[in-house]
């Protein structure tokens, strides 16, 4: 398994091996799926759209519907304008969405299609919308694309009417529907009226009803996006995924925002609740306080199994950083943090985290890949690996317990329904981690050390 990976360091500047990121458009597609009755549209070769739909479907085990401009060699030479025009006509005609959300691809970006101009030239039916975002695959990652798409919804649609509507805009970041549900549940418990954008709950974790719905019940409505301009404030989770939309809303409609880390773990969920409390100015309800206390209780109970355990975490930057802080709260050492997404902010934030908790010997890398992470692990081993499916090869090669968390998880089920965020998500993540470590103890120990009580 991965026999070619050796521990000896080797500086690479060309080859990316076993990436920990993918390209912008898939993120934009996921974001657009979180808008109700929206057709995500990939402006490029149809293979992009197929790949992205495939990947989202494999992670969520639910249909990921999107259309494509189906570029041919001709369009690549002469520009994709007519493709987009035809596509828009057909999409509104056949699939009748409320809104088409176009994202570009490396193809249309390289040939320089001016989407603003193209869309202005399209005859959009009354009451329908068409927006776009630029998602060149050769910049950033799927997280950038997600962020760009959310920001573009706002830039296109949100309007400030001059008076606030008392709602808080919530930008959940690139998380699962189960996480979005949990973020909303907390806001509801705190009594904060909100609009979440995007909201893939009900879309990418939709129930079996015996009837396929091209546009399932979930998703932020266009009206809600428009009214985001009247939000009292906004909460943005994750610098990488959500700063851009929060900034866009701030710029366009003067809605102030709190940029928070993804609310995984105690401290980061606390931050979310404090931000909500700043809005309501009322007491935190017992239920949340109880959940918090339960999570603290659990972490104290499990500390003999987690303390000082070395963990490698890879995945999306906001997710990795928040999991890392939760690990630190559990007394674990987030030995290696790797994201494929580029951005110095990741490494800075990681360093701040290490020094906040006073841990040494941990390292973080943005724009990294799993080959290098694996080299690090070979150089100095870890007790646990956390990340998406692609980590399974390393886990098997090095015989390390592996907890699947983040995106993409394409070899397991059910994960997208259940949260990692919030105190409840913390219980779930703590259980996964503890079970992984304890199962390993039970597997590896001598027969006389196989314990009934642990």
């Amino acid at each position, binding site marked *: 398994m991965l026999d070619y990976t050796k521990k000896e360091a080797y500086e690479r500047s060309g080859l990316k091996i076993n990436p920990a990121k993918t390209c912008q458009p898939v993120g934009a597609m996921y974001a657009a799926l979180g808008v109700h009755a929206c057709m995500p549209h990939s402006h490029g070769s149809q293979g992009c759209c197929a790949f992205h739909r*495939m990947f989202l479907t494999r992670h969520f085990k639910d249909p990921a519907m999107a259309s494509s401009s189906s570029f041919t060699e001709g369009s690549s030479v002469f520009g994709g304008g007519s493709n987009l025009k035809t596509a828009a006509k057909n999409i509104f005609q056949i699939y009748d969405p409320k809104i088409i959300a176009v994202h570009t691809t*490396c193809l249309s970006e390289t040939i320089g299609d001016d989407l603003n101009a193209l869309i202005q030239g399209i005859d959009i039916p009354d009451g329908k919308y068409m927006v776009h975002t630029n998602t060149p695959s050769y910049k950033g990652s799927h997280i950038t694309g997600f962020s760009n798409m959310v920001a573009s919804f706002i830039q296109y649609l949100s309007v400030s009417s001059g008076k606030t509507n008392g709602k808080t805009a919530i930008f959940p970041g690139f998380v699962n529907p189960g996480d979005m549900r949990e973020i909303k549940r907390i806001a509801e418990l705190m009594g904060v009226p909100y609009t979440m954008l995007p909201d893939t709950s009900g879309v990418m974790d939709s129930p079996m009803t015996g009837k396929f719905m091209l546009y399932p019940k979930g998703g932020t409505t266009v009206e809600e996006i428009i009214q985001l301009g009247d939000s009292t404030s906004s909460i943005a989770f994750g610098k990488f995924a959500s700063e851009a939309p929060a900034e866009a809303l701030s710029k366009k409609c003067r809605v102030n925002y709190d940029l928070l880390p993804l609310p995984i773990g105690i401290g980061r969920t606390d931050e979310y609740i404090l931000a909500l409390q700043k809005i309501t100015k009322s007491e935190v309800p017992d239920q949340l306080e109880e959940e918090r206390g339960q999570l603290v209780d659990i972490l104290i109970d499990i500390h003999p199994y987690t303390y000082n355990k070395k963990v490698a975490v890879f995945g999306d930057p906001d997710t990795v950083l928040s999991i890392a802080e939760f690990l630190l709260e559990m007394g674990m050492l987030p030995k290696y943090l790797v994201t494929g997404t580029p951005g110095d902010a990741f490494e800075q934030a990681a360093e701040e985290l290490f020094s906040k908790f006073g841990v040494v010997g941990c390292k973080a890398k943005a724009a990294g890949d799993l080959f290098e992470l694996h080299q690090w692990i070979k150089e100095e081993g870890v007790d646990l690996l956390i990340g998406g499916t692609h980590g399974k090869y390393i886990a098997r090669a090095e015989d390390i317990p592996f907890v699947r968390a983040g995106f993409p998880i394409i070899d397991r089920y059910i994960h997208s329904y259940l949260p990692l965020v919030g105190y409840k998500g913390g219980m779930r993540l703590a259980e996964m981690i503890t079970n992984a470590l304890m199962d390993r103890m039970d597997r590896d120990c001598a027969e006389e050390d196989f314990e009934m009580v642990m």
Partner: protein
Amino acid sequence: MKTIHKVLEKYDSKVYKNRKEHMVEVGNNDNNNEIAANVRTIPGIITQRGCCYAGCKGVVLGPIKDAFLITHGPIGCAFYSWGTRRHKARKEEGEDNYLQYCFSTDLQESDIVFGGEKKLKQSIQEAVDLFHPSTIFICSTCPVGLIGDDIHAVAKWAEKEYGIKCIAFSCEGYKGVSQSAGHHIANNQLIRYVIGEGDREIKNKFSVNLLGEYNIGGDGWETERLLKRIGYEVVSTFTGGSSIEDLKNAHKANLSLVQCHRSINYIAEMIETKYGIPWMKVNFIGVDATMKTLRDIAKYFGDPELIARTEAVISEELLQIAEYMEYYRGKLKGKTAAIYVGGSRAHHYQALLKDLGVHTILAGYEFAHREDYEGREVLPFIKMDADNKNIESITVEPDIEKYHLYLSEEDLNRLREEKLIDYYEGMVKDMENGTFMVDDLNHYETEELLKALKPDIFFSGIKDKFVAQKSGILSRQLHSYDYSGPYCCFRGAINFARDVAMGIYTPAWSYVKAPWKTAPILEGTLGGEAVC
């Protein structure tokens, strides 16, 4: 035609006209079942098709275990095609296997602006340093063609610089109209730079190439097992589980077996032209189909002992599965199926379904050409369009040294006339009148046809799998076998039957409707008071 009309109704005239040509009610049309295929998808239509890169890298080249395949472009294309097709390959002693890895030049904005060749060269150097591969493939993605990187020049440079084999594939995603273009491009380079280079000793005159078999779920291994059991030597498999070395020797076989006609027919033909080896369309999917295939192959070789051994093996394998086949046929008889897969399986699997008593009422290909539907007899009548013309079509000449005939020209011509070799009859001849054949079946049509035809099972891919299932119809992926397999030959038929039966009979289906949906609330309240 009522069903098709009802589906087409929603389209505006332009789309209507286009899509009408792709939808055939078999035996019930004025057009002798002619179908439009291998033409561009209309923008905005939700097609399930992929791109040229997917066909080249994903389908044909991906399975070659020891080709160090660098995707030259932004990260996505390499990432999506990393481990996502189930072309299995064993790492054998002395062979490389890079299938657990994903290699990309991960082009950045500056590379797009200033050109990516430098980064590609750098990547090759790093690949050589870290992996010492004997062969490097370079596959380009959309922007590479546009920015004008000369990957072929880089390949030549690498061969010289590192003394390795390096082949470039200009398989930018926008080329052609589907994955099909990519197959062709891959075929071209393999015949140019790989096939014919080997000098492995072939010990057995009953030697075959297995073309268009990508070892999804282990199909290739099972087919090889069966062929070897009868007494064949499998010289090469294109390309499932193969090493470059295997492929290099393809010119030494005495017959090419073509499983997936669509993706590999170029190589099949060019091998024949260049090396004299005829090809035979085979089908190892389905019990009857496998028997027929084995008998056809034996007939080609014409050896009485081989023929006897073929019958003996068939009997033995049949005996092993008889009880199970009967059991599953009992479970599946009378069910109906719709199939929409690639460029061969929609046809192949009808045979297996028939073995199980399942009636295929709708079938379509994602990226096939007309001959895959109608048979190679339509080849002379297929019009080339701009999209197709752009895909290079190469011609080869006989290789005087390596050209060899197993049968006499006379015998070959007889077999050609019998359509035993060098012929594919297409799908439609195996479909009953009144069933439907649809090319490039798109999302809207899928939804409507499933509603109209109500098949018990929809065989398709991951993108539409859950569309079907949400509407209460079992769907199984026939691209990736839903992570099961092998499905081919005798034993595989049982795996398939088991998987389909479990899908149909899985109890969860009976819970789709909540009981309170069917049992009305007996008493209602109105304004807080009981009304009855």
